[in-house]
């Protein structure tokens, strides 16, 4: 045993791709092993989908319940995973010094963030498969063009909410992150235009909600999957949130 260190070669980093993928796989596994996260990521969106499919909330909006509900629920998945789930995990990693420790390994700070983005995308892919399968059983039949548009828009939404989640996790205490991201999830899911089109409530409300990242992503997903088009106003709003969120996170994120 005394030769454990003496005869071994000195440390060399794994390749960048391997480091980042390894971190992504590790974080995704941690996310999927966490019961609370699974409730937030899978159970809540599924309950929302079924509730919208069996109740008349979405009736009279010019399309079947399931066709209006599914794009919004997919957008909700991005909010759950990228904003709430990832934000809470990062906030506690920061508290426990995990971010500091990993940034001293060959992974580094940039690799750590890249790994988190990969984990969010892996989790989101799993959510999309589950939600889409259940929705298909409930009669959802999206057009191929709608799906082709919807996927990159959902990824853009996930990127936006990842930046916003990191911004909160990197600037306030983890307990506050927990409160803000959970409350944000409930408010945005209920009133933020992500699941229910804001026009459903009132014109005043729609005027506010259209400027939120949640409202923009909901509108984009519905326009893509129901009409096969990109809503220009909504994509400008979402891109603005993505850029502003990323700049703010880079500027203010604290590692300790």
């Amino acid at each position, binding site marked *: *045993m*005394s030769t*454990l*260190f*003496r005869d*071994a*070669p*000195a*440390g*060399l*980093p*794994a*390749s*960048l791709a*391997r*480091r980042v993928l*390894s*971190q992504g796989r*590790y974080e995704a596994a*941690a996310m999927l*092993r*966490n019961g609370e996260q699974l409730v937030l990521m899978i159970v809540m969106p599924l309950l929302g989908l079924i509730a919208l499919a069996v109740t008349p909330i979405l009736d009279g909006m010019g399309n079947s319940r399931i066709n209006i509900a599914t794009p919004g629920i997919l957008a909700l998945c991005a909010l759950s995973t990228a904003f709430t789930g990832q934000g809470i995990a990062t906030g*506690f*990693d920061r508290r*426990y*010094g*995990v*971010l*500091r*420790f*990993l*940034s*001293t*390994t*060959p*992974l*580094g700070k940039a*690799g750590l963030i890249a790994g988190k983005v990969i984990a969010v995308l892996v989790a989101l892919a799993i959510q999309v498969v589950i939600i889409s399968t259940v929705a298909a059983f409930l009669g959802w039949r999206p057009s191929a063009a709608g799906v082709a548009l919807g996927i990159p828009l959902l990824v853009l939404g996930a990127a936006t909410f990842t930046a916003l989640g990191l911004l909160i996790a990197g600037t306030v205490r983890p307990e506050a992150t927990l409160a803000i991201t959970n409350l944000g999830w409930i408010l945005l899911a209920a009133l933020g235009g992500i699941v229910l089109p804001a026009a459903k409530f009132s014109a005043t409300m729609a005027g506010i909600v259209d400027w939120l990242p949640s409202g923009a992503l909901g509108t984009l997903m519905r326009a893509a999957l129901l009409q096969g088009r990109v809503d220009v106003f909504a994509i400008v709003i979402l891109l603005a949130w993505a850029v502003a969120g990323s700049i703010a996170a880079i500027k203010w994120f604290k*590692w*300790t």
Partner: protein
Amino acid sequence: MTQTSPPAPDAALVISGLVKDVGPIAALDGRMKRIVSNISLQARFGEVTALLGANGAGKTTTIECAQGLQNRTGGSISLLGRDPDDADATLRARVGVMLQDGGLPPAARPVTLLRHVASLYSNPLSVDALVARLGIGEFSGTTIRRLSGGQKQRVALAASLLGNPEILFLDEPSAGLDPQSRLMVFELIRELRDAGKAIVLTTHLLDDAQRLADYVYIVNHGESVTEGTVPELLSQSTASQSHRVVTFEAAPGLDTAALVHDGVRCEETRPGSYRLGGALEPADLGRFGGWCAGQGIMPTSVHLASQSLEDVFLAIAASKEPLALKTETR
């Protein structure tokens, strides 16, 4: 007393005149607070270098600057010949870091975490060998949040060693260690030193420094105060020849004022236990006997011992005026 030697060719880490400000601090009207004002040190390969100081002396800040975790305000740092502020993956792979709080995710299991950290290196040490060496196998299936402090420290140490680093930073390595873990960790540190690694440890425990360190830097209020091998520091501390300390036990609450004079201190370390230290002269033993007679007491025990690093440290800390809070506007 501080003298900075020229950089040695076998130095793994050279810090010169480190300055670190934090802030702006709202309580200081938005000014910066200077927490390290002038710290210099070198760590050589094949040596344990200890950075010793009270809590808040600037030890952790200093090594975090050396690791690139914090950006310094002034001074220079050479880590394996590179600037830690520009560390890339290649440099980070050659440096091992064990943080004061471990930095381990509470929900992870030790071996799963170690395998993940190992995957970040192209040629890691065997996880199984490290697990066996540090006795991690006995709790490998337990999540980190359920481990004892000593068990967590062992996992954090293993994680810092996976890349077989050339320089290893250990921040308060014996904090929270049970005796068994402490023995295990100390043995491993000596083994790493014998394998030619540079080991930098920070500690506020004088005993750790005395047992492990080949070379000690004492820092106080963000400044290097003195440096040397343990024997050098012991001889340097007292201008007088005697590096002795008398401990005795008697009734609690005695008035020991008569024992105190230039350079000699007496304190009641716990009720009924007294410690007479400082620049003791033979006459002080006579004075002690006279004091006992005068008080009419027969101590239950009297012990005359060599001075420890703790005496050096206390003498240095006492001789330094506490620095005024140094601030400057940004």
